[in-house]
């Protein structure tokens, strides 16, 4: 970024950007007024844009337009009115006195939600992942390269070990003896320990990923501040 090709509007924008960046960074000193100002503006702006997006993407084209164009369409049933009706009923949830009216719509949404969750979990995650775990042992190099074959078998077994032990780690059932806190059977406890090892590695790797994503933002922000300052002064 060079100052020469910055328009005044861009320059103001850059300075506004720096102000907000520093306001947010000030949170490292603890909760303070500048930080609060910035986040309240942020919540406002983000929500304000949601008004815009829902209006242009949903409310106008999907709720209002179909009703306005109702006569023009050959679709002469009342089904286009249903979403509008459901939406209005859902909005009654905001008025304590009318809240009962919206409950069926809530029940409808809950039904959709849990079904999508179950269906997605079974068809989307469980089956593909089970098949992937089994297919770990599908080697094209069956009798071609013995050395490589065994390395692959060991690696695949290690992945499988991680999957199964991590799954068993969550086992909830336990028995209590003589008023002691419930404990799982010895061998399950042992498997769970191995599972915990894999969980720790997984979480460590994911944590590193999030941290690096955050560091990229830090680098970009600081780079932005520096280059703006260097080009202005």
């Amino acid at each position, binding site marked *: 970024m060079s100052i020469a090709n910055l328009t005044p509007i861009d320059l103001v924008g850059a300075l506004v950007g720096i102000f907000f960046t520093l306001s947010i960074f000030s949170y490292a000193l*603890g*909760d303070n007024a500048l930080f*609060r100002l910035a*986040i309240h503006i*942020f*919540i406002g702006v*983000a*929500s304000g844009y*949601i008004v815009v997006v829902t209006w242009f993407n949903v409310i106008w084209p999907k709720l209002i337009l179909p009703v306005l164009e109702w006569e023009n369409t050959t679709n002469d049933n009342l089904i286009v009115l249903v979403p509008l009706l459901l939406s209005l009923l*859902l909005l009654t*949830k*905001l008025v*304590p006195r009318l*809240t009962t009216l*919206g409950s069926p719509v*809530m029940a409808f*949404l*809950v039904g*959709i*939600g*849990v079904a*999508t*969750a179950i*269906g*997605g979990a*079974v*068809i989307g995650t*469980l*089956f593909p992942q*089970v*098949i992937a*775990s*089994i297919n*770990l*042992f599908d080697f094209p190099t*069956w009798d071609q390269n013995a050395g490589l074959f065994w390395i692959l*078998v060991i690696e695949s077994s290690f992945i*499988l070990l991680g*999957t*199964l032990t991590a*799954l*068993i780690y*969550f*086992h*909830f*059932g*336990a*028995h209590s003896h003589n008023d002691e*806190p*419930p*404990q799982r059977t010895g061998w399950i406890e042992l498997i769970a320990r191995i599972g915990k090892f894999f*969980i720790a590695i*997984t*979480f460590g790797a*994911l*944590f590193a*990923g*999030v941290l690096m*994503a*955050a560091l990229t933002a830090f680098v970009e922000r600081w780079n932005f501040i520096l280059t703006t300052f260097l080009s202005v002064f």
Partner: protein
Amino acid sequence: MNLPYQIDPGYIGLGFVLLFLLLILTFTAILRDKGRRSLGEAGLRKIPAFKKLWRTMNYSVESGKRLHLTLGRAGIGGEHSTSSLVGLSILKSVAQFVSMGDKSPITTSGEGTLMILSQDTTRSAYSSSGVAEKFDQADGQLSGLTPFSYASGTLPIIYDQQTSGTIMVGHFGSEAALIADASENTDCMTLAGSDDLSAQAILVATANEPLIGEELYAAGAYMQIGLTHTASVRAQDVIRWILVIVILVGAALKLTGVF
């Protein structure tokens, strides 16, 4: 997977769900026979986070400090709805317990339908405790509509309300770290669980009472919410071992080249 004869995976899926349902029903029946002694933590492994939660709830009633629940940003009509539902059942249990104290719990969320349900849940918990008049709509509020604005909108509530504990249960992403961190800064108990793996990874490090993976979904059983909750944890255990066996057998068959 190349099976010798092709079964529609849809039917396997349907069978799986039905088996799960059947197991939950069976365990509900068994537990009903055994009576209430089988409820709660009896027969379940110890999860320290839930013990701390009970303690914090007691502390909250004694000290007159509020508990803060934040239920994530997943709508109830979407694929992450189940984690939000877990949050709501914890809210119900907390609201009923705390209704005898003088401070109601405060709930924040990042989605409209979830916010409405959090208000409904608190209201019905109060009326079942006979203190319906204590309910205030501001007790269930929405703090922001995008992930980061939700997280940052929750921070002032944690700092201003002087809460005794923050319970984060629902669908969060990495932004959850900001909430957990603010709660830790105010020396609160922070119980946190999410269905998102990245969020779990950072919550393990930032919250003092993290719930890992499936533990989140066992909350109902540990909070003694009802028979079916305990029954479903039992069913999960059975299905878990079925899965283990299926995968092991499948892998062995694959390795030996049967299919």
